[in-house]
């Protein structure tokens, strides 16, 4: 079964995309909706004048891992709906690089699920970003060694 829309996208995660994701998680039993956005900021640890990020992924593996993270989060935390998009390609200052929308009966579940998903994506999804600076130079971000969840180990 194909997902209704690709998790990894070259299209901007702009206000219209945010509104779409918000609608995707609408649910009459939801008392809380939480939308997390990672956004491009003008600096990172020790680096000034960032004007954009450029994302690359092992896309099929990243999509599969993010889908597994969503499924495992749903199994662990009683939420209603979850929708995730992660950008590929160039993302300008202020734009969203990832959006995670979660609806749940109660806010505690929404916060826990949202936080678990972003933390796991950052530690597990094979995605890399390059920081593009105002002076025209760019460099790959120092990353973290990919973390393997137990569930993936059992394959």
């Amino acid at each position: 079964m194909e997902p209704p829309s690709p998790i990894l996208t070259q299209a901007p995660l702009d206000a219209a995309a945010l509104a779409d994701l918000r609608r995707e998680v609408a649910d009459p039993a939801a008392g809380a909706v939480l939308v997390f956005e990672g956004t491009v900021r003008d600096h990172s640890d020790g680096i000034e004048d960032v004007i954009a990020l450029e994302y690359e992924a092992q896309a099929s593996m990243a999509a599969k891992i993010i889908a597994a993270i969503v499924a495992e989060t749903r199994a662990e935390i009683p939420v209603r709906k979850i929708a995730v998009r992660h950008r590929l390609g160039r993302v300008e200052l202020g734009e969203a690089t990832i959006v995670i929308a979660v609806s749940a009966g109660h806010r505690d579940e929404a916060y826990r699920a949202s936080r678990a998903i972003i933390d796991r994506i950052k530690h597990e999804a094979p995605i890399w970003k390059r920081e593009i600076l105002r002076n025209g130079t760019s460099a790959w971000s120092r990353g973290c060694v990919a973390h393997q969840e137990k569930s993936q180990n059992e394959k």
Partner: protein
Amino acid sequence: MPVIQVNYYAQLREALKTGSEEVSLDLPARERDILERLAQLHPRQKALFLSSRVAVDEGYVGANAMLDGLCRVDIISPISGG
């Protein structure tokens, strides 16, 4: 010695100036054996290889699996998504 396809991404792809190469490799092997073999072939990227993970069929193989019958592996250097 079997020859397998090794795929590179991001900083490794750039540093090695290729997204993919054929590498001969003793099998069965663990993740660490594969990374050390690649570091030996590309000594300037040794630190990056030794902090990378190996993936097969869109999943990390893990440190303990004994791998055999491989055709293709992805080398996942330290990640920075999100």
